[in-house]
């Protein structure tokens, strides 16, 4: 190291600051390696059910993350089942979350949350109930950003305990995060360091996969490749099962490899009421209804009783909201089919 750079770095080092909020998960890469050492990488069939997965793979108190982008390619069946089974005190990665967050807020399932984007449903508006839940103070919040949570997952996926990046410096977002400032050892440049995020449990909805969990995803992939790698236990719900032969025909298209995956469930229309690229568009009417009933806590309670607690599974919920006929309409909307 040149003397100037060394002096420059030493001078700056004392002024480095840290975000003041809680880090909800352990970023230690060796601890994660010890877990991954014992994680099965056997090529064995992993078919399961929604009920079984939520019962056996997810414990009260776990830290969870949901794939997709809020109301796009989300594993709705798993999210509903978490509410249905009354899971509590979860930690949640509020990363590109919208409708998924809204459902889990209705179930009051979590008590701590890494925030990138919460409460809102993008252009659709804000969720009154999620807002009440968050403003109640029942949930510990640590602030991050979309890229920050992407990179925290990426750090974990890479087997590191942190990654450097150039965003969030100098802001209150940094102040209320659990990030730390560091210096580049080559240039002396200041960076934000983000701690690796290894979720206990992740659910991801995919277009197709085989029984081992080798999966294809089409369209924007958000952070799901890193999420699948970073998470200790991973369940895939899939629009359709495909043969392993089809995976082997295009090995470059494998989006998630089997070794990341612990359970596979075939759930056609599984992203409903969210959008599934190339399959069906989001059910905006149903999402509007959610936002509307949330204005009144009593109305919301009845709605959740009817839609989630009172339905046996995802298919009863789907049937309640229009079933296959509705899905045909949403497919026409997705594919821009004229005249529908």
């Amino acid at each position, binding site marked *: 190291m040149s003397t100037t750079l060394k002096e420059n770095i030493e001078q700056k080092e004392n002024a480095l600051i840290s975000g003041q909020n809680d880090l909800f998960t352990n970023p230690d890469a060796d601890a994660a390696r010890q877990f991954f050492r014992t994680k099965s990488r056997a090529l064995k069939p992993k078919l399961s059910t929604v009920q079984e997965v939520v019962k056996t793979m997810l414990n009260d108190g776990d830290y969870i993350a949901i794939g997709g982008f809020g109301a796009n390619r989300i594993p709705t069946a798993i999210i509903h089942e978490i509410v249905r089974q009354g899971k509590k005190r979860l930690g949640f990665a509020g990363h590109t979350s919208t409708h998924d967050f809204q459902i889990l807020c209705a179930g009051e399932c979590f008590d701590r949350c890494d925030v990138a*984007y919460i409460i809102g449903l993008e252009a659709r508006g804000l969720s009154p109930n999620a807002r009440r839940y968050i403003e109640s103070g029942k949930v510990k919040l640590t602030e991050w950003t979309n*890229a920050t949570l992407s990179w925290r997952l990426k750090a974990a996926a890479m087997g590191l305990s942190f990654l450097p990046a150039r965003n969030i410096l100098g802001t209150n977002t940094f102040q209320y995060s659990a990030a730390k400032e560091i210096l580049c050892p080559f240039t002396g440049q200041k960076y934000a360091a983000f701690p690796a995020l290894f979720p206990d449990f992740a659910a991801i909805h995919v277009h197709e996969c085989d029984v081992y969990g080798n999966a294809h995803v089409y369209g924007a992939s958000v952070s799901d490749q890193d999420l699948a790698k970073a998470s200790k236990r991973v369940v895939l719900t899939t629009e359709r099962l495909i043969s392993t032969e089809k995976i082997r025909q295009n090995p470059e298209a494998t989006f998630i490899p089997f070794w990341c995956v612990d359970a596979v469930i075939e759930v056609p229309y599984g992203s409903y009421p969210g959008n599934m690229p190339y399959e069906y568009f989001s059910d905006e009417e149903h999402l509007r209804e959610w936002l509307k009933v949330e204005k009144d806590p009593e109305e919301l309670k009845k709605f959740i009783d009817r839609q989630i607690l009172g339905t046996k599974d995802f298919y009863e919920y789907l049937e309640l909201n229009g079933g296959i006929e509705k899905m045909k309409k949403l497919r026409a909307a997705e594919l821009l089919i004229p005249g529908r």
Partner: protein
Amino acid sequence: MADYNPLELMICVAARNLEDGSTVVVGTGAPCAAAMLAQKTHSPNMCILFEAGGVAPILPSMPISVGDSRTFHKALMASSMPEIMETCQRGMVDYTFLGGAQIDMYGNINSTMIGKDHARPTVRFPGSGGANDLASLCWRTMMMTVQDAKRFTNNIDFITSPGYLQGGTSRYDAGLPKGSGPYRIITNMAIMGFDDESKKMKVLSINPGYSREDVQDNCGFELMWAPRITETDPPHADELRILREEVDPHRYIIGR
């Protein structure tokens, strides 16, 4: 002169700032409309990116979500969030648009909360989403917003996304990429830039129908003024026609 509403003016002005051959990350709503308008007027080869991964789609309609199918409809690439954010961090993305509940004189933006106690906010908003990332990493940040003295305030409750922080060189001293920062604040009343040295917000032009007093009175801090303040060039007839007929025919955005 064509008749137009404030949002139409803001969108048209924003679009003019997006030159051909540039790259822009947009969200839903007015920014997306501005980018589409730019493409359909002077910037056919401007490249639109969405933070969930969509690159250069042929947008069949306005997206509802920055991750929905429209954002990568017949796109040149459907990638990932880290891919888009790293492309910004590498310096390949020229523009982005932000929104927020509060903005201060250095272009710092609050989209997190109102109140003084982070653990018990008076009002909670969604938080950064990708806003901090794009404000940090794209070269030039723009904002379209209705202007009032509550929104334009130096008593900002929370800096979600960085503008020029405390002004001067503080943004770069903090480690944010050199040369990046807020570029244009486009309101219903005026168009602002930022002073080269102090990095304070500076009025460049005033929209038709508004006065200097309107602009200053509806701002909670003292504005700087360019040496020669012009009147903002209002939307042209062809811009309005394309905006209304091709970009937003259902008036989802311009009808608000």
